[in-house]
């Protein structure tokens, strides 16, 4: 059996890295197409609840996003720990939510206004009172389509 060659003396052949850029570019393009740049600074604590029956929002450009939660980070000292509503880039008081939401609505292109959806992104820790007030406000300006934004996951983890 002396016909087997022993490799002991020679070095391992170098692996060609010529296709490495191609692989990396494929990864790059994948990430570029899959993700959307988050252009909005969320100024409140925002852990969304889990749900199993959530439907995907098909479009994003007819959404009015409302964040609700306690202020986070350094703002706690300034604003306290009461839950706040963030609409667009600023905090709004409860009695101004309706007008601010209308403003957002009218900044949309006209053909999208009929299908506008208010997506409520509320923190799990908040109480329903603020949501009920918000819904009243939205009803008063006839923004009736709402969406409670959730994360896909086991719904009973919420209540544990």
């Amino acid at each position, binding site marked *: 059996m002396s016909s087997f060659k022993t490799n002991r003396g020679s070095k391992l052949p170098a692996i060609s890295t010529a296709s490495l850029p191609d692989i990396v*570019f494929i990864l790059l393009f994948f990430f570029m197409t899959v993700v959307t740049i988050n252009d909005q600074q969320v100024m409140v604590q925002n852990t969304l609840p889990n749900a199993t029956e959530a439907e995907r929002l098909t479009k994003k450009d007819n*959404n009015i996003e409302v964040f609700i939660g306690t202020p986070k980070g350094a703002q706690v000292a300034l604003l306290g720990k009461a839950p706040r509503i963030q609409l667009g880039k600023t905090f709004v008081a409860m009695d101004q939510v309706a007008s601010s939401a209308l403003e957002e609505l009218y900044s949309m292109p006209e053909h999208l206004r009929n299908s506008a959806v208010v997506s409520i992104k509320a923190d799990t*820790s908040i109480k*329903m009172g603020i949501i009920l007030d918000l819904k009243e406000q939205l009803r008063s300006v006839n*923004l*009736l389509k*709402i969406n*409670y*934004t959730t994360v896909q996951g086991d719904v009973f983890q*919420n209540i544990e």
Partner: protein
Amino acid sequence: MPRRKGAPEVNAGSMADIAFLLLIFFLVTTTIETDAGLDRMLPPIEPPDTDVVIKQKNIFTVNINRNGQLLVEEELMDLRNLRDAAIAFLDNGGDGTCNYCRGRKNASSSDNPTKAIISLKNDRETKYKTYITVQNELVGAYNDLRNREAQRLFGRDFVDMEAEFLNPETPSAIRDDLKPKVKRIQDLFPQKLSEAETSSN
């Protein structure tokens, strides 16, 4: 001076590094969007013209108190049993006019899925996550029943059909085909989830 060998070759060895830098930049600056949620419709502000009288047996009352406990049809219930209870109520078919129901046909429960209404009430102090859990279970009850009927009639899940129908990228020919099907299933089990005035104490 004429060039004999053509253009000199550009060294592409650092291409991988540049691509990696771009890749890492995109990885860091982006977040995958969580744009899924429970769709709801608020009642319009003006009250309906006529007061409709609804039989008590056609209403399934769900009350959430401030501690997150559930009172369903005047009985304390665990959240995990809510979906089955809601399905039993919707699928009851008490007056025998519903030929696709598979419920117990209990005369003291709902007459027909098209008449059955789920009424959800909550306290101002109820936690949002509890509320979402309840909403999810109630929507889940409707979806389970609709899936069952869609499987029976069209051999696929209603949730799939609806998602495909709502997706703007679906070709319009397929959408036109799906529209009556989705409508038909929705009419079999219309989602009547009312959130009337909430208690303030």
